[in-house]
């Protein structure tokens, strides 16, 4: 069979000492930048790109790809251990992952994250190998109306995230939507809420707000508590946990991981959404279908397994549009395309046929890299945990420093750093008001995408809203959205009626 020949060819390219060592190096560096909050794969790949000039193209790409998916593994580590997402895609992991750590189950959380990521990586690498061209057509046919309907579904889903007051969650979503409005309006070129500040015309960076509300805020809140209580994982809380998953954990985690993989694989194909959306949708799904949704936010293992699998699956499948069409679905993929052209290869549909060793070698290396990562990560978990048990006054300034470096590296500008510190103030107020930052952050991502795609869809259809119903994928998404809304509203109504009858 053709595909077996191709996969064999891929492995024959990937399993050379040179390529294996660069794959390992890439995944290691990736894990490291993933662990460091703020510092992401985009900045790292941009910085390391000159070093790859001397390598041949396949080797260079294998290493750069390793950095990218390595970061997805690493990002969850800090999310679980110190409640600071190392990568934006691991924000969701903080919800239940860190709760697990507080209950003395840090090792289990990290274990399930690593295994879930590995499973997702394996499946989606297989998808890339077997079905890249048809899947890329799926990505192409996902256009403005579908995006809009997906955003509607996600926005309704946001309410599910709320742990406490639904009202506060809705307020946070609205605040997020407002923040998302900042910047130049795509359709008219008019500025909104920029107050004459040129740096704001491209909008407020997602990483800026995420770092402030999640990363740095955690440090500020930590400073409030008395010194002896600041240790993240004190012995009193039950230590780190076991190095194995119980049967019960496994039974809960594996279906979540399978669902997360499926969701992540599909959402990873779509330009612009990336891992955040994938992990977030997976979390909503898990919470909705769980027998006891109240466990979520209190250390539910499915809340770690699903999103972690989803973001890793998405990271792998986002290679599909890049490899088969030369289209970047994420900033990292834009860099990969840049790297390809620097090495004299025109990215596009012909890469598969004109450079089969590159294409299949890269895919084979992705699976090997995932294997490396899971082998690497298991012993590394111990190291990370040791690192976290370093004193607060040593660890947290270091984290703060890395946050600053990471935010600065976004556009090599101090403006972003200043903006981050402003958002820290907001974040602290939110904590004091008992408002959760996650809905705000997601509202900020979803809002502009929703608006942009609504207007685009309406312009293309010349003002006919029927387009959302006529396109099948869009219709299905809207039906899901309506169903979700009903599921949210009906119990509330029924409760009200019961109360009314009582009186």
């Amino acid at each position: 069979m053709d595909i077996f020949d191709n996969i064999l060819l891929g492995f024959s390219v990937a399993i050379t000492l040179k390529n294996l060592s660069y794959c390992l190096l890439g995944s290691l560096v990736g894990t490291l930048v993933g662990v460091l909050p703020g510092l992401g794969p985009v900045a790292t790949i941009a910085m390391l790109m000159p070093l790859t000039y001397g390598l041949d193209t396949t080797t260079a790409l294998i290493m750069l790809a390793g950095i990218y998916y390595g970061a997805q593994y690493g990002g969850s580590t800090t999310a679980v251990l110190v409640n600071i997402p190392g990568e934006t895609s691991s924000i969701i992991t903080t919800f239940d992952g860190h709760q697990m750590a507080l209950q003395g189950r840090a090792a289990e959380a990290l274990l399930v994250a690593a295994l879930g990521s590995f499973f997702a990586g394996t499946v989606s690498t297989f998808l890339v190998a077997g079905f890249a061209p048809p899947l890329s057509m799926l990505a192409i046919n996902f256009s403005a109306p579908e995006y809009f309907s997906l955003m509607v579904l996600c926005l309704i889903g946001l309410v599910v995230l709320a742990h406490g007051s639904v009202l506060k969650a809705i307020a946070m979503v609205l605040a997020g939507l407002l923040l998302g409005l900042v910047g130049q309006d795509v359709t008219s070129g008019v500025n909104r809420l920029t107050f004459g500040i040129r740096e704001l015309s491209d909008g407020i960076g997602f990483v800026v707000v995420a770092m402030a509300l999640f990363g740095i805020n955690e440090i500020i809140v930590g400073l409030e508590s008395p010194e002896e209580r600041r240790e993240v994982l004190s012995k009193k809380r039950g230590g780190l946990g076991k190095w194995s998953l119980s049967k019960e954990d496994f039974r809960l985690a594996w279906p979540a991981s399978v669902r997360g993989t499926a969701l992540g694989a599909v959402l990873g194909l779509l330009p612009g959404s990336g891992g955040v959306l994938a992990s977030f949708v997976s979390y909503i799904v898990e919470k909705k279908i769980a027998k006891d949704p109240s466990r979520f936010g209190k250390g539910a293992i499915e809340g770690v397994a699903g999103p972690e699998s989803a973001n890793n699956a998405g990271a792998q499948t986002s290679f599909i549009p890049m490899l088969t069409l030369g289209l970047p679905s994420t900033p990292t993929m834009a860099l990969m395309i840049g790297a390809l052209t620097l090495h004299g290869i025109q990215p596009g549909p012909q890469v598969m046929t004109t450079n089969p060793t590159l294409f299949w070698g890269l895919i084979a290396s992705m699976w090997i890299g995932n294997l490396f990562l899971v082998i690497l990560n298991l012993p590394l978990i111990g190291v990370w945990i040791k690192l976290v048990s370093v004193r607060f006054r040593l660890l947290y300034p270091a984290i703060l420093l890395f946050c600053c470096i990471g935010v600065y590296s976004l556009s090599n500008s101090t403006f972003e750093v200043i903006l981050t510190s402003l958002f820290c103030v907001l974040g602290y107020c939110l904590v004091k008001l008992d408002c959760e930052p996650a809905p705000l952050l997601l509202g900020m991502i979803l809002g502009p995408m929703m608006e942009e795609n609504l207007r685009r869809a309406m312009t293309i259809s010349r003002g006919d809203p029927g387009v959302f119903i006529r396109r099948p994928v869009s219709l299905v998404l809207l039906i899901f959205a309506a169903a979700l809304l009903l599921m949210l509203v009906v119990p509330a109504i029924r409760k009200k009626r019961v109360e009314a009858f009582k009186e």
Partner: protein
Amino acid sequence: MKKVSLGLILLCLLFFVSVNLTLAQNYPDKAIQLVVPWTPGGSNDVLARLIGQKLLEKWKQPVVVENRPGAAGNIGATLVAKAAPDGYTLLVAAQNILAINPTLYSNSPFDTFKDFTPIATMGAVPVLLTVNPSVPAHSVKELVAIAKSKSEGLTYGSSGIGSPQHLTAELFMKMAGVKMVHVAYKGAAQTIPDLISGQIQVLCCPINSILPHVKSGKVRALAVAGVKRVPSLPDLPTVTEAGVKNVLSDIWISIVGPKGMAPGTVNKINSEVAKILASDDVVKNLRMQGIEPLIHTPADFAKLIRSDYDRWSKLIKELGIRAEQ
């Protein structure tokens, strides 16, 4: 007292001039910062890194590509406009930064002619007029006919207000006397999938990102919006040849410095870049991406900026295209 201070100022000026002169001779004796006002990965960035790497090999001084994205390139451009004109801070400027942005944005932070020293051009990227294959037009004339016959018009995409995609299409519409509906996207990445899937029917796109799709037949190229045909698609006519005159929209990518650079330094960079652009491996690499090497003397480059600036600002003002920053 006055005389003393005047003398001091003169002395300082003299010192400054002499430093400038020696600098030209020894240039470069430290790292050069090449500011790319876009995020990494785009064609400006790739070209900057390619040329930067070659300059490093030649001069044995690091050439650091620094990405300062934001505000359609104006943030990076402003940074360089304000830098010292010593040749160690240079800007990789695409045509739109120098020739379009100052007219497009009501509050431009710089003046193309007062704030920059033209140094060297690097490459030209022709713009192709492309359609989705389901559009029954195989020539520019047929496209014009279809656009005129449809009551609701065709839809064209762009990567934002004032982008080359947008302005080329506007220019084409004006010259051909047709109307099409504009759909703006955030960046070029999303326009091509929507052209392939037929959401938008027309796209004026820089050749480097659309060429693979033209070759695979997923989109159909009708003409080149430039003065001459492109080597990678020799059978494709120019828009002028196809019957609509004056649709000229070559994008060029260049290096400029802050105003007031020493001519010696300017010439040194210019001749070195020209040498690099003439070497076979660079030409091959650029052509493969659809970029044509473009070599001009600093004086000719200055003329190119002037003529493009005048041409685009006329169009922008006539059509009343505006954007804010």
